[in-house]
């Protein structure tokens, strides 16, 4: 670079961090010019979050130094980071769910031993921030009642309220609609204009290219490349990340849908609090097609998957499947649905799809543990489970191919492979698959998408739920959009574009048509 010292908002030198045996960050250096948006990309487990957590004082680095505005600082805890003007929006939100927005924002910056004054002052200050950055949110709402997009705004407000000059966002768009994401980027842009420095972590190369000034790539704990955004492209970044060439498009022929294998009629579901989560949802699923369900998360997709897979019993409505009629009075549980050859890859592999404390071979039979294949007369056959697991690991390229490794110790992508392999290898007629690539890196995504298309071509019926519009559009043959528990529209894949779908997802299709977003 040039001779004069550029005004770096933040500069890292030789940061290393290890967790037990895992070297999460290895001798990392990074320079972020003031008032820029700096992207960081990398595969799962590359160490991005760890690095950010170090900057934010959540972890202490083993070695290395951090400078802010050219001055070395000693960040031992988040308190220190806040003091030097660093704010962070974490990958998993750091909000107290049953607190109000206001309470969350003042937490740690209460401004006095008695809350009242602090809360009142904060209310005023927030009004200013909100209008300045278009960050509207009801400060008295309880956080768990807010949609994720708003929760994220609370996180940003939290940082700004503490006077953050450097804002770190760790995978902020994973849970947003395209419109919400757009809104976020507009906010980031206006922050940038005010001189705030933004560090953005994301898996979506499109976002990197659209909104960052510079981008750094991490691989296996190391910083492997820095690029000016304007000088690079998707292909290069993808290759840098994975270390090999990546195909970014799904190859797929047109579908040849056959007979209907599953039809759901007027499915409704009320939760424990009596809130209607599903509202008269009807759909038909044909063999040999991929039906995509688009929607912002939390609009009934999870409930739909739960009802279809037998995890939850509908409050009213019926499902025709495999010659059976399933109604509230004649329900079938998840085990029975599996027997009818329905497989289910759940949205959240940690919460549902896996028991992270189990070893891989045990997790690989979850849901099929009663099957004769794995059971003797009294005892389960370890040998049978083991053999099959080894075979699948080889077929699906699970790394490391060790059936005895605890599920928790596989990387996200490999965990997902274990789950998908388990469900697919049972040769189901219907596959329900939720968020197949959430948090999965580019290399693994490619593989998973290929498998899904292969299944379709083998004549299976596939119901795909995803909040990634790219994914929905790349894979689906038909797209249904859900909003607030109801189906708000259906589009053939050929006619779908991001804007239309996005507006439908926000249920603004009718109002929004023609208007400039």
């Amino acid at each position, binding site marked *: 670079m040039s001779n004069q010292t550029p005004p770096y908002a933040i500069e890292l030198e030789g940061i290393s961090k290890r*967790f*037990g045996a895992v070297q999460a960050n290895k001798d990392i250096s990074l320079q972020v010019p003031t008032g820029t948006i700096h992207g960081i990309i990398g595969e799962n487990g590359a160490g991005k979050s760890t690095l950010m957590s170090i900057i*934010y*004082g*959540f*972890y202490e680095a083993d070695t290395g130094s951090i400078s802010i505005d050219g001055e070395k600082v000693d960040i031992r*805890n*988040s*308190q*220190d*980071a*806040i003091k030097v003007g660093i704010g*962070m929006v*974490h990958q*998993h939100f*750091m*909000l*107290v*769910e*049953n*607190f109000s927005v206001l*309470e*969350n924002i*003042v*937490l*740690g*910056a*209460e401004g*006095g*031993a*008695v*809350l*009242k004054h*602090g809360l009142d002052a904060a209310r005023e200050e927030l009004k200013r921030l909100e209008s300045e950055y278009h960050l509207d949110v009801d400060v008295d709402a309880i956080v768990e009642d807010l949609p994720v997009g708003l929760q994220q705004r609370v996180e940003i407000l*939290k940082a700004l309220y503490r006077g953050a000059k450097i804002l770190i966002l760790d995978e902020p768009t994973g849970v947003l609609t395209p419109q919400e994401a757009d809104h976020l980027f507009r906010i980031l842009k206006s922050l940038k204009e005010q001189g705030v420095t933004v560090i953005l972590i994301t898996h979506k190369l499109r976002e990197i290219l659209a909104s960052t000034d510079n981008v750094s790539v991490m691989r296996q704990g190391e910083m492997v490349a820095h690029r000016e955004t304007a000088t690079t492209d998707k292909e290069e970044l993808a290759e840098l990340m994975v270390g090999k060439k990546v195909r970014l498009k799904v190859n797929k022929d047109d579908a040849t849908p056959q007979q209907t294998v599953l039809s759901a009629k007027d499915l409704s579901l009320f939760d424990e609090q009596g809130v209607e989560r599903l509202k008269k949802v009807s759909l038909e699923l044909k063999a040999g097609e991929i039906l995509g369900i688009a929607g912002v998360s939390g609009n009934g997709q999870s409930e739909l998957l739960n009802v279809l897979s037998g995890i939850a019993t509908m409050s009213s409505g019926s499902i025709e499947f495999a010659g059976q009629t399933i109604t509230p009075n004649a329900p079938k549980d998840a085990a029975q649905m599996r027997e009818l050859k329905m497989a289910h890859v759940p949205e959240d592999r940690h919460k549902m799809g896996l028991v992270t404390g189990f070893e891989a071979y045990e997790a690989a039979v979850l849901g099929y543990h009663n099957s004769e294949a794995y059971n003797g007369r009294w005892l389960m056959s370890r040998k049978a489970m083991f053999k099959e697991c080894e075979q699948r690991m080889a077929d699906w390229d699970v790394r490391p191919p060790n059936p005895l490794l605890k599920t928790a110790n596989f990387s996200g992508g490999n965990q997902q492979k274990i789950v998908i392999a388990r469900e697919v290898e049972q040769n189901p007629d219907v596959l329900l698959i939720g968020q197949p690539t959430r948090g999965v890196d580019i290399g693994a995504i490619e593989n998973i998408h290929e498998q899904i298309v292969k299944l379709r071509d083998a004549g299976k019926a596939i119901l795909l739920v995803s909040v990634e519009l790219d994914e929905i559009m790349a894979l689906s043959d038909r797209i249904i959009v859900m909003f607030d528990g109801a189906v708000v529209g259906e589009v053939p894949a050929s006619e779908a574009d991001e804007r239309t779908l996005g507006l439908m997802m926000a249920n603004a299709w009718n109002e929004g048509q023609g208007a400039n977003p």
Partner: protein
Amino acid sequence: MFETLILILDATLRVSTPLILAALAGLFSERSGIVDIGLEGKMLAGAFAAAAAAAVFGSAWLGLLFAIAASVFLALIHGFACITHRGDHIVSGVAINTIVAGLTVTLGLDWFNQGGQTPALTGDARFTPIIFPFAEQLADVPVIGLIYSELLSGHNILVYLAFAMVPTTYWVVFKTRFGLRLRAVGENPHAVDTAGISVALVRYRALIICGVLCGIAGAYLSTAHNAGFLKDMSAGKGYMALAALIFGKWRPVPVLFACLLFGFLDAVAVRLQGVSLPGIGEVPVQAIEVLPYVLTVLLLAGFIGKAVGPKAIGKPYVKERA
């Protein structure tokens, strides 16, 4: 009839005082995410320390101080195990209860040579009733007089303190910065940590308050309600306090009512004993004795349903997995 009721309520206040103190102690601890089945042990240690110090120095107040010190010390051990070393909260509680059960008797025997008891306390070594002004004179005024002179007046200071602690706790937990952090740390310690607040520090503080309150509860047992320490004198009150805490859904006022209910049942049981009911004859003691427990189970099953505690309760806060 009215008089009997007043007397029962009067006893209710006395009996529920240690429950209230211990349950509020548990509230602070559990709101911060630390399960505390060691309430029992801390109370017992407090009772012993109070009685021992009161016997030696002749002052109930010094006794109270020692009780608090002993109980806080145990609370810190609990913190050391659960917060600093991420040990299992229940095991730590069981350990503390066990150690205290043995140690009080062992030390008591060594110090006083009365089989683990402390000498009987008299005079200033005990907390004595506080008679409200005009209590005597007003005693004969119908209804109000009785309520004033029997029910309200004539308890020792720790009883009033226990009741005063309820609004105080409410205020601290819901209206102060510390309370906000306390509640936050029990719900989502990560959020607290990233807000720049030390999770451990908040939890330690909560445990210290818990220790103080348990110490007072213990001192009440041995230097106010009774006059000396006896082996195992806490007699399961710590567990009942825990039940009351869950019953009251970790909120100060409902917890107070839960404690009062238990105290009331106890007081009624004492008076129901030996009463012959026409036709049935004498109710077996065991049936009456078991009433609070059965009622707790029934109420838990029927009325309050699922008690959802602070979300992070009982889970060690792990930042880095080694």
